[in-house]
């Protein structure tokens, strides 16, 4: 679930689930650096067995970091990934297993979202690039006119690295897979803390989303009778809903590890344009390293963002108290109640379905559902879900409960919005008045440089204006003699245009100003016009822009999805009415359902059969998502075929539905690339396919529209808008691609193949000798030519089957995929072992139960915590 709001909501409601991570740092004595001894016990007071890395959550922040310049090359990126991974591993110090899971091809249900995000980000990137180009031209002429030496501007204004290449099947993912193997082998040879560690790598060639491959693995191990039920797990990742996955494992010793998103130090962040610290892109002036002294990138102590734990056992405790309904004829089963909770969270948002119009995380939608669930427990006579299967007649009861409240929820939402807008207007007016008073008194520091989050945000068009005397400008204000272009002037051209009575383009205006440098005689009044106008930028435009910039990195399984927008959202609501189209559905007025279906789905307002169809698809979707979380992918091809959700009231006769999924096959990497990338990102796809995206005669050119609509759908924030792209027709896509497959090069073919998981151990691990004897000794036991061996769980601590890796030889020297991907000291005699790995498969349903022998962690909550929680529950959700 991509909403940062989910994380905040969880934290607010269940405060004790979050605890800080204690991280040991390398220390220095007499100038000598001593690394942390990770063979010692974990400083967090508990040692961990297994660490799972949802690896895209490492790749993304390393490829476009927040607090330093982005790596210049992909090799540098890999080195950054090594560093970051090392930090995370050292924090956890897993003793038994490290699983690195990189996103492989996703189920079709996920691809709709991936596609929307990638098209959107390509469009935004295109706009940004155009502006950057313009900005660059302006800078050049400015430098020229100043007589500055012409620095390489390409170094100043960074070209956007297309993060769309972080998708299976691209050359980037191949380098990543080889690099991470190299790093793991190097660590096995050099780190004593890794002696008894088993490392599994599931790279992008293995289908499935990273976190769900991790889930599959955990379920597969639980099914083995020799699995240790007290295994202590840590999962690293950025998605807030990893905590739900943690709950869904029914492993009570489970923590989620992530960066602390609540700590956002703007000063530590870097500009999207020039990669330097100290300002946002909005205020970037493209200065070369003028400020290198203040914010040098080679700082001695890189400020490391702190990490936090999300403690699943604590959440289990909270939910145990919250979901317990006394006096039922059936036994309270916490594990079942937890599953129901996870299920109800899906209604409020997930990656596969749009959320119900009446449920919003910001309005405590989950509380609403829990309240309905508690009210209905006696009527339901049991739980809503069972081992990943929805009881549809019980789901009907919950949705009926919600339907009863739906009208009221919409009306209440409207009232809240109106109140908020009124308050905003009042604050604006008060502020304007105050500023006008102050202006009369003395020169106020209007704008500091750099300026975080103030300049431009709270201002309004009225009140500050051209009549302000230029002499009021403080010394650090841009003087007419040295007008410097800043990004604002370019980015917010539209806003400037509106504010500019002369109505010439901002670029033209700026050019005009720059020219004036050579005409010092002219009156200063004129040029101040423009900077003044810039300051008057309507706040919403800027806010929106900023949100979009942040959202750019907000791709599937990327940090942005759970990264809160740095500005409180209300600030972006200050709203220029032009920005948000009027909401013509008006959910708060009767007849909204008719208007909704007419406008969103383009069907007749009385087409109830259609509504039922939408609701049925949605229920299928809920069933699919539930299975996805609890049993694995039920269908690779199923997807929800609409852009919008139905109303709760549209769900009727659910108990008559019979939901069945056809498993299907995952897409091949190139098919997914063609399914989710826009033509603008075609550099990540083999050239033979390019014409399919761009040739007007291509039979699938309609999948790749240059332009597409965004529907704000009643939301104020543009990044929440719905991207109205046509859905991919799998059959047409595949048949079009089939004509091109024979034209692929051998190497391109190889990149499209499905791969296997890999297992690595050092020669000090008990499995090493077994595997070496099995696969590399003269007397290979597998005389029947079968290069497979079932792993001994009791001695090896891992269930599954190992297969000989044909491309591995022991005792070779270790080499990275590129010369500059290199780790010191070099390893000439590799003492690790690499084999292919297949996790055990079970034909049985994974049961949502604690395993026998589990010792539950000590309780964390006291009576007060529970009392607070219950009083909160009484006050919300109804």
């Amino acid at each position, binding site marked *: 679930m991509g909403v940062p709001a989910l994380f905040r909501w969880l934290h607010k409601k269940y405060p004790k689930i979050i605890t800080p991570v204690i991280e040991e740092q390398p220390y220095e004595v007499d100038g000598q650096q001593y690394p942390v001894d990770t063979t010692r016990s974990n400083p967090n007071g508990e040692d961990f067995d297994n660490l799972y890395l949802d690896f895209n959550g490492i790749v993304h922040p390393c490829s476009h970091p927040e607090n330093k310049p982005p790596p210049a090359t992909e090799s540098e990126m890999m080195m950054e990934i090594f560093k970051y991974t090392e930090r995370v591993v050292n924090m956890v110090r897993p003793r038994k297993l490290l699983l690195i899971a990189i996103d492989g091809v996703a189920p079709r249900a996920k691809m709709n979202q991936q596609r929307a995000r990638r098209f959107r980000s390509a469009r935004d990137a295109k706009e940004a690039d155009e502006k950057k180009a313009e900005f660059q031209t302006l800078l050049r002429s400015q430098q020229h006119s100043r007589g500055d030496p012409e620095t390489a501007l390409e170094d100043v204004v960074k070209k956007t690295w297309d993060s769309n290449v972080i998708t299976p099947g691209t050359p980037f993912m191949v380098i990543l897979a080889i690099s991470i193997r190299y790093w793991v082998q190097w660590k096995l040879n050099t780190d004593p803390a890794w002696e008894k560690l088993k490392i599994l790598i599931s790279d992008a060639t293995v289908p499935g989303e990273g976190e769900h491959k991790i889930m599959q693995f955990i379920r597969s191990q639980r099914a083995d009778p020799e699995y240790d039920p007290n295994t202590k797990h840590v999962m690293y990742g950025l998605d807030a809903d990893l905590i739900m996955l943690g709950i869904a494992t029914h492993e009570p010793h489970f923590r989620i590890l992530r960066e602390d998103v609540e700590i956002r130090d703007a000063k530590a962040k870097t500009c999207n344009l020039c990669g330097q610290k100290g300002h946002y892109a909005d205020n970037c002036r493209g200065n070369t390293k003028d400020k290198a002294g203040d914010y040098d990138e080679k700082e001695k102590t890189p400020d490391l963002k702190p990490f936090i734990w999300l403690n699943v056992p604590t959440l289990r405790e909270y939910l145990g108290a919250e979901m317990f309904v006394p006096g039922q004829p059936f036994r309270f089963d916490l594990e079942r109640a937890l599953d129901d909770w996870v299920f109800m969270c899906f209604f409020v948002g997930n990656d596969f379905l749009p959320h119900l119009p009446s449920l919003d995380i910001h309005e405590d939608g989950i509380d609403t559902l829990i309240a309905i669930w508690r009210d209905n427990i006696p009527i339901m006579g049991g739980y809503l879900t069972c*081992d990943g299967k929805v009881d549809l007649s019980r789901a009907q009861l919950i949705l009926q409960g919600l339907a009863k409240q739906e009208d009221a929820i919409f009306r209440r939402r409207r009232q809240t919005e109106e109140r908020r807008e009124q308050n905003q207007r009042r604050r604006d007016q008060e502020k304007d008045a105050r500023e006008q008073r102050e202006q009369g008194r003395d020169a106020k520091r209007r704008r500091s440089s750099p300026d975080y989050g103030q300049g431009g945000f709270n201002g309004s068009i009225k009140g500050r204006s051209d009549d302000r005397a230029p002499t009021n400008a403080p010394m650090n204000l841009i003087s007419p003699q040295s007008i410097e272009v800043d990004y604002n002037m370019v980015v917010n051209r539209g806003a400037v245009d509106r504010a500019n009575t002369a109505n010439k383009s901002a670029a033209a205006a700026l050019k005009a100003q720059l020219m004036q440098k050579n005409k010092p005689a002219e009156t200063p009044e004129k040029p101040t016009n423009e900077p003044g106008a810039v300051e008057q930028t309507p706040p919403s435009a800027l806010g929106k822009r900023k949100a979009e910039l942040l959202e750019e990195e907000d791709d599937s399984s990327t940090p942005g999805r759970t990264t809160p927008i740095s500005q409180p959202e209300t600030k972006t609501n200050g709203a220029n009415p032009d920005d948000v189209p009027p909401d013509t559905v008006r959910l708060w007025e009767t007849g909204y359902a008719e208007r909704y279906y007419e406008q969103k789905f383009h069907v007749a307002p009385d087409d109830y059969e259609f509504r039922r169809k939408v609701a049925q698809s949605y229920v299928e979707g809920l069933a699919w998502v539930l299975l996805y979380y609890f049993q694995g992918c039920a269908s690779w091809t199923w997807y929800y075929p609409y852009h919008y959700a139905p109303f709760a009231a549209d769900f009727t006769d659910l108990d008559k539905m019979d939901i069945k999924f056809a498993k299907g096959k995952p897409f091949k990497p190139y098919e997914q690339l063609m399914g989710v990338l826009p033509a603008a990102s075609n550099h990540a796809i083999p050239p033979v396919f390019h014409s399919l995206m761009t040739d007007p005669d291509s039979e699938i050119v309609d999948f790749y529209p240059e332009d597409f609509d965004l529907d704000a759908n009643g939301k104020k924030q543009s990044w929440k808008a719905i991207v109205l792209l046509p859905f991919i027709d799998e059959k047409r896509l595949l048949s079009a691609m089939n004509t091109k497959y024979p034209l692929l090069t051998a190497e391109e073919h190889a990149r499209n193949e499905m791969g296997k998981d890999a297992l690595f151990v050092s020669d000090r691990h008990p499995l090493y000798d077994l595997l070496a004897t099995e696969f590399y000794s003269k007397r290979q036991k597998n005389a029947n030519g079968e290069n497979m061996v079932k792993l001994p769980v*009791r001695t090896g601590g891992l269930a599954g089957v190992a297969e000989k890796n044909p491309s591995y030889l022991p005792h070779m020297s270790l080499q990275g995929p590129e010369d500059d991907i290199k780790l010191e000291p070099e390893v000439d005699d590799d003492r690790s072992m690499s084999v292919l790995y297949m996790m055990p498969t079970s034909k049985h349903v994974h049961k949502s139960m604690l*395993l026998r022998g589990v010792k539950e962690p000590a309780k964390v909550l006291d009576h007060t915590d529970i009392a607070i929680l219950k009083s909160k529950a009484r006050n919300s959700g109804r």
Partner: protein
Amino acid sequence: MASAQSFDIEPIARFNGASAGIRRPKEITCFSFDDQHKYRWDDSSLRYYHPPTIPADLNRGFDTFRALDDTRDDHLDGLVDTIALHEKEKGAKVDADIITWRGMMTKIMATPFSKLESWEMNATCFQGSIFIEENHATKLFSKQQQNQQKMPAGTPSQDIMSFWGYKFETLSLIPDTWDPTSREYIESRETEIVDNHAQYCSIVRTGFGKIKMIIGGEVDAVWDVKPTHPSSTPINYIELKTAAKIHTDRDQAKFERKLLKFWAQSFLLGVPKIIVGFRTKDGILTDLEEMETQAIPEMVKRGKGFWDGNICINFAAGFLEWLKTIITEQGVWRIRKVEKSSRLEIFKIEET
């Protein structure tokens, strides 16, 4: 009747000290009785542990209990038949001084701390091994006596108390490992009919001091899974027991005495873990506790110290070594423990 010889129990202090050398029990074979109590030379009746939901009523289903008729004398049948099959498969005789059920060895081991007990066993020597079995007639007789004993009103009958034990097993066990067992089965164990026809027995080779033994005994379940290849690691069998909840010091004392039997039984077959289901006096199961067999003697020593595991082992080793010097020829011998007696008696009852 030949004249009786005897082995002194008292003074037990002479069995103090480090225990005699023990051969860690190792399974050589096993067998099952199916739900019709038909013999099978396999592990088909082996069951698996999955904890019951508590609280649970152990009385439920007493009226539908499918109880095995235990009045028949089965002698050492299952044990001896299986050893024969095993020997045939291996093509070699097993080498043992003593071959017996685990129950006989438990009684012998517990002797130094079970003054009030009385029992009788029969022993024969055949092809160099001494076979020991319970004297069935005495067993039935003493059971009858027990049942006729006047108990205070409200005390549960012997029958219901033994049912509680089987019920606890039904509540705690599943027929297969967890993954293939359905949720429906696991959740309906409370209504499952209690049936003690099916049994699983493990046969182990072990040894006390100089005595080599083959012992067979029923095993309740396995914790995880039986290794497919015989390995050096012990099989994680478990033993299920019920006991009254402990409220008072007296309860505690009673429980620690009971632990002697729990420990000896599991120790003899090499069962590493015992799961005790604590119940109220009217048979409501309320708590579960996992105990490591090998930790029990220490636990008792730290507690009331009623018994000492080393003394039990040394006593048994001493007695069996002595027994081996007595039973050297064919015939049937009786070994007898009389209530409050400070010696074990042995005498020949029959020439063959």
